């Protein structure tokens, strides 16, 4: 499983390691280059000095060629210079070219490869000239005759050859003849190597120290940096159905996590509301379904237990009346639930026709007239003559009936109800306002939820709490919008607006 902590730690460590190795390598190479370049410069200076301090006389052998340095094979002993090669360098007998543990070396060749001079430190050994010379000098590493690692420079230089008079030669210029010689100066590079070794050791030690410190620092930093995230993760892990009211902290949270925490809190708020709504719905449905069944079961079982007892016809009638009432209640529940289900699954049929809203209101009111009279309600109708709307008459009737039923049921005895139908253009098509001092603004957010009732005990079995859910579902089908408000603490308003075309027809003799 991916771990943010491990990923960050490994990325940072690898990054730090690469940076350290790169920096160390660059530093090492730079110092190496500098040291070797200085070493080479010294070598070249020595070589050029050697060249400048060398000359050749006009002594020639019997064949007319200068006398050559004899070889070991010929002489049986080592010679440093031929007779005609003259170098102040060798004459100075510099200590560094004398045989010693720290000796340096030189060797001089003519163009044809004949050795004409060598340092005493070489003894019987020879240096060698690198294969291809690019330019007048070339540096190269070699193993010195005494076995040490060394570095050498080969320099091609022109040797001034003094001529006595009428010498013949193509390089001869005004009494001087030029000959190309090659000198190789070699010396131990122990000091450079030792310095580089010290540098490398230092770099490795510092690198190891830095890597160790980096590991500790990175792990600490990552852990510290991820602490707020860990805290959020722990809190998220602890959230379940029982503590949905908990919220993630937003104070003292890093700005990077603040949007996450705020978003999670919003989601929790919605989740909590959904769970509450779900629990309420489940509980309400359970009550609405279980209670009538419990009543029916108690009724029938107790009745059966009384079978042997004498029973009055009136008492028997009570049994049947109650059974019928329970059946009617359950039928109403089933019908409503099916209607809601049809609306939700877009299976509710809508038959549009020209319908008079005023007539629908008047017709629907008849069912509640008696109850309103008994409760001594003061009902005020503000109705135009006629308002024709292209709609489904049955669904609109159901909407109006539910709203009137709600108004009559929940208006206290002697209270007022106002029913207004307008042309629907600038005002709601239908408004019903009634006295009700029990509802709060919080209640209005639940009023369209199926089975929601202000009375949590749901004692009154004549209402299911689905009236507004049906109104909302049917209104949506008909393209209408239902809104509720509490303009005053004791007044509840529900209004319906529509986008449908409304026709106003004068009704003759009305």
């Amino acid at each position, binding site marked *: 499983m991916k771990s943010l902590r491990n990923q960050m730690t490994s990325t940072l460590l690898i990054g730090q390691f690469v940076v350290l190795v790169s920096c160390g390598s660059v530093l090492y190479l730079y110092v190496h280059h500098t040291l070797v370049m200085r070493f080479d410069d010294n070598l070249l200076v020595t070589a050029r000095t050697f060249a400048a301090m060398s000359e050749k006389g006009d002594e020639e052998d019997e064949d007319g060629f200068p006398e050559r340095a004899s070889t070991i094979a010929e002489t049986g002993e080592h010679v440093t210079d031929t007779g005609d090669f003259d170098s102040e360098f060798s004459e100075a007998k510099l200590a560094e070219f004398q045989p010693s543990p720290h000796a340096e070396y030189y060797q001089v060749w003519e163009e044809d490869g004949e050795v004409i001079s060598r340092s005493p430190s070489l003894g019987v050994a020879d240096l060698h000239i690198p294969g291809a010379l690019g330019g007048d000098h070339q540096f190269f590493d070699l193993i010195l005759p005494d076995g040490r690692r060394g570095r050498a420079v080969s320099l091609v230089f022109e040797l001034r050859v003094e001529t006595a008079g009428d010498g013949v030669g193509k390089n001869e210029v005004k009494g001087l003849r030029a000959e190309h010689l090659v000198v190789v100066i070699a010396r131990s590079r122990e000091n450079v190597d030792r310095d580089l070794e010290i540098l490398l050791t230092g770099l490795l030690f510092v690198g190891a120290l830095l890597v160790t410190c980096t590991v500790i620092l990175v792990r600490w930093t990552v852990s510290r940096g991820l602490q707020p995230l860990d805290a959020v993760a722990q809190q998220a892990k602890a959230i379940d159905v029982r503590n949905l009211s908990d919220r993630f902290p937003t104070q003292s949270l890093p700005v990077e996590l603040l949007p996450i925490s705020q978003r999670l809190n919003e989601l929790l708020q919605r989740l909590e509301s959904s769970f509450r709504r779900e629990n309420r719905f489940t*509980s309400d449905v*359970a*009550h609405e*379904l*279980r*209670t009538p*069944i*419990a*009543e*029916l*079961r*108690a*009724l029938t*079982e*107790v*009745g059966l*237990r*009384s079978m042997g007892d004498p029973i009055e016809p009136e008492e028997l009638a009570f049994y049947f009346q*109650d059974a019928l*009432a*329970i059946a009617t209640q359950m039928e109403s529940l089933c019908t409503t639930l099916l209607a809601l289900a049809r609306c939700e699954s877009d299976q509710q049929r809508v038959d549009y026709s020209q319908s008079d809203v005023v007539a629908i209101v008047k017709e629907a009111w008849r069912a509640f007239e008696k109850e309103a009279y008994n409760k001594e309600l003061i009902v005020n109708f503000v109705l135009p003559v006629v308002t024709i709307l292209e709609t489904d008459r049955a669904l609109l009737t159901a909407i109006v009936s539910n709203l009137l039923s709600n108004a009559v049921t929940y208006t206290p005895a002697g209270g007022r109800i106002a029913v207004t139908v307008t042309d629907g253009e600038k005002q709601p098509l239908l408004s019903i306002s009634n006295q009700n001092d029990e509802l709060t603004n919080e209640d209005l957010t639940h009023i369209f939820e199926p089975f929601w009732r202000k*009375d*949590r*005990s*749901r*004692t009154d*079995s004549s209402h299911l709490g689905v009236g507004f859910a049906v109104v909302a579902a049917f209104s949506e089908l008909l393209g209408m919008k239902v809104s509720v408000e509490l303009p005053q603490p004791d007044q509840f308003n529900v209004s319906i607006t529509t986008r449908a075309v409304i026709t106003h027809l004068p009704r003759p003799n009305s």
Partner: protein
Amino acid sequence: MRILLIEDSKRLQTYLAKGLRQVGYAVDVAGEGEHGLWAAMENEYDVVILDLMLPKLDGISVLQRLRSEGCDTHVLIITAKDTVPERVYGFEQGADDYLVKPFAFEEFLARVQALVRRSYGIKHQRMSFGDLSIDMASQTVMRQGEELELRPREFALLELLALRSGQVVSRTEIEQHIYDERAEPMSNVVDSAMCILRKKIDQSGRPSIIHTIRGAGYMLRVPQQ
């Protein structure tokens, strides 16, 4: 045995109370929480049957108030709330039993009877006093192997004396446990009921199993041989 039924459904009130009365229980009914709490605190009930979704004061609040006031009457919750957390919460608040609606009346009755027995520390549903045996489940009384025909209230009277056998049960206690709020017992109704019960369960020529303790009440005790 006297039972308080706190239930807001009129039909359940009617038929549960009717069924309980059929088997001899005295049943008081309350339709909302405040009335139910008041009744439970004012009277001595053997069992309180409590709905949870009640107007004015919900069932859980009634239960909490009962327990906080020191009332240890056994409480049977009847409700449509059937989830495990809801049941557990009900028990945690002091309920003695929990029954989810809808339920079989037989089961409801058995649970009420069990709670009644627990009120008196009795675990068995059958009690014997000499050759008199009382089966509280089937509500039958046998004497020397013969079943006696007792009316529900007579059985309730015998059951109360049996549950408290060896103890004196006062007339007031009998009135409280045998008659509900609908009844207006006359001053001598307990004596009359006791007289009828004695006639049915006693055998001629043998001392009565129910003793009158003068000035105190009655006691069911097997006579010494």
